[in-house]
């Protein structure tokens, strides 16, 4: 039971590395971006894992509840904004991928490198 308290961290580590693996090994640029968003989600999971307090509730103050325990609101604030920023940056990446496709006719990294070395 004690070990289950670390399960979130293990999932974080495994998912993070799966994302990293995708980014390193796949040639397809969109697949790379998907891997990057998995990587990002793993980091979100790490932060949100840290905010949990035993017996706590979401940090919304209710009147009439004496001596409440709240989970930590600070990581939530950081991640809330990070998710929205994440989608904007992903969109920027996708826009670049679309332009690469239009110029090179491919979104596979090795094709693009081959086209580059031809020039």
């Amino acid at each position, binding site marked *: 039971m*004690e070990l289950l308290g*670390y399960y979130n961290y293990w999932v974080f580590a495994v998912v993070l590395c799966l994302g990293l693996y995708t980014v*390193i090994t796949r040639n397809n640029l969109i697949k790379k971006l*998907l891997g990057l968003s998995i990587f990002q989600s793993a980091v979100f999971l790490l932060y949100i*894992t840290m905010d949990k307090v035993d017996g706590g509730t979401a940090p919304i103050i209710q009147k009439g509840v004496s001596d409440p325990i709240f*989970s930590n609101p600070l990581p939530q604030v950081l991640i809330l904004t990070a998710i*929205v920023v994440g989608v904007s940056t992903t*969109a920027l990446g*996708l826009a670049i991928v679309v332009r690469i496709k239009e110029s090179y006719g491919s979104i596979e990294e090795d094709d693009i490198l081959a086209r580059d070395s031809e020039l």
Partner: protein
Amino acid sequence: MTILFAVFLLSLLVIIAVAIIRAENLFVALMLTTIFSLLMATNFFILDAADVALTEAAIGAGITTVIFLGALALTSEHEKPFVAVPWLALPVVAVTAALLIFASFDNPRLGDPEAPIHQHVVPWYLEQTPKLVDIPNVVTAILGSFRAFDTLGEVFVIFAACIGVLFLLSARKPSETRCTAPASVGLSQHLIPKVAGRFILPFIILFGFYVQFHGDFGPGGGFQAGAIVATGLILFALLEGEERALRAFPRWIMMAMAAGGALLYALVGVAGIAMGGKFLDYSVLSSDPIAGQHLGILLIEAGVGITVCGSLLLIFHAFAARESF
């Protein structure tokens, strides 16, 4: 009981992540990513982060999927088959994972109330929020008031990313004359999605406004509300086709929203200076400091919502309009 549920959901998360990597069709990988996001939102909810769960469900599962679909339509759906065996990458990644798992034993256990993160500044936030800001949702209080300068930065990052997407996707090759695209009619040929979509649309927008203005009292706020309203308007564009959507909600309004929301946020900060306080200090906005805080948070949340909604719509339409030339 909850921990068993959490372990189940987290294990599913790993399985889905593996499935995403193995999927060769990018469309399938994208759908799996959506499931991944929804599972992640459920996990956030179990970990007491209701605000974050709402954001992840609206943005990770909703908007991200639509933007990826837009990009997939412009590129290709199939990944080239994967041949090379990653002799170098596999050990590197495995060692990284092993190190991270090894290091996890030095972390505080899940839910430990004695963890360092719960000792530093957070007790002060929890204690002072009822006195200084007096709104129930501490997340909104920190986001909008205590750390408003951070949030201002985030809003400008979104705005900048939106401008970047517009720069990249609005340019055309000079040689190509714009060919008249077949008029996109969206799903208007399909009766069932049309009827259901039209029926749901007002409720989505209404829910967006609820999330916007209820953000002080419950989970919600400008980021989530902007994304939900944007989802509703994207649904409209999908149902009625690009052209009609742009006629109903022209591009200049979206641009004005994206810029205006960020401007409103910054102006609230400047107003604080003008009225004798510090930048983004709302207490001086009204004679009663707490009323000033309420007014300030309302205004900046509105600014955030407007910018997020406008930027996401602009990004969507940038991808959608690219198809036609």
